[in-house]
């Protein structure tokens, strides 16, 4: 039986909008599967423009951050763009504390992210 996807993926105007199914991105196996699915999305695109929507995410580990860094690098290697959207207080704090808010493009809302990823 096929494994259930860890992501919900919507395509609109050449932009890939990704939502997480899991609310807690902590487990190594879960993180590895999300990383594989995101890498597969990136590999299919010539110039990937991807929004990761964190509206469902309540907890995030350092391993998850590592996976996101790897995905961001892969997108950058193809001259694409990754934008993170809808990070609530605690999740935003994880990025601020680790100073990864300087390494990622982060928008408050999905609408802002759509505008940013088009630039």
């Amino acid at each position: 039986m096929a494994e259930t996807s860890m992501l919900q993926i919507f395509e609109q105007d050449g932009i890939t909008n990704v939502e997480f199914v899991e609310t807690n991105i902590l487990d190594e196996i879960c993180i590895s599967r999300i990383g594989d699915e995101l890498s597969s999305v990136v590999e299919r695109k010539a110039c990937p423009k991807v929004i990761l929507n964190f509206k469902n995410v309540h907890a995030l580990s350092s391993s998850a951050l590592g996976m996101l860094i790897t995905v961001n690098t892969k997108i950058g290697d193809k001259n694409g763009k990754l934008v993170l959207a809808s990070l609530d207080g605690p999740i935003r704090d994880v990025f601020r504390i680790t100073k990864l808010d300087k390494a990622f493009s982060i928008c408050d809302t999905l609408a802002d992210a759509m505008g940013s990823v088009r630039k």
Partner: protein
Amino acid sequence: MCSKAEQPDKQRVTICGLRESFDEVQESVLDLMRQNQYCDHDLFSVRVAFEEALANAVLHGHQGDTTSEIDVLWSVTSEFVEIEVIDQGRGYDPQTIPDPTANENLTLPSGRGLAMIRAFMNEVHLNERGNHLRMVRHKDQNHTQGAEFPSA
């Protein structure tokens, strides 16, 4: 630092490095915190730090071996949460880990676990060998259970 007179009895469990074991012990601590009216900010902080400590025990302490045993001790009072995580590994020197917040290291995919623990807990102590982590979070007295996470 908590004085000796304030030290409550600690609960202790020995677990393996599997997700189910992590969830069970984490939920035990979080349940006690909820009973003691800790706010969402405290619950989130302890959950993240606890996860990082257990992940470090498996990945660095036991080189990914999920069958090796991890001792976990905890106590939750109305004022603070104290957690200890002890692995069977040879330990490590945190000084050897590059500062993950330095500009030149921001794209490194690993090495943020201890930094996150230090950010989310009020006291963090790693023994000289590097296999015994003790961490304490004081209750945020300005927020009650159900309150929103304060903005950064």
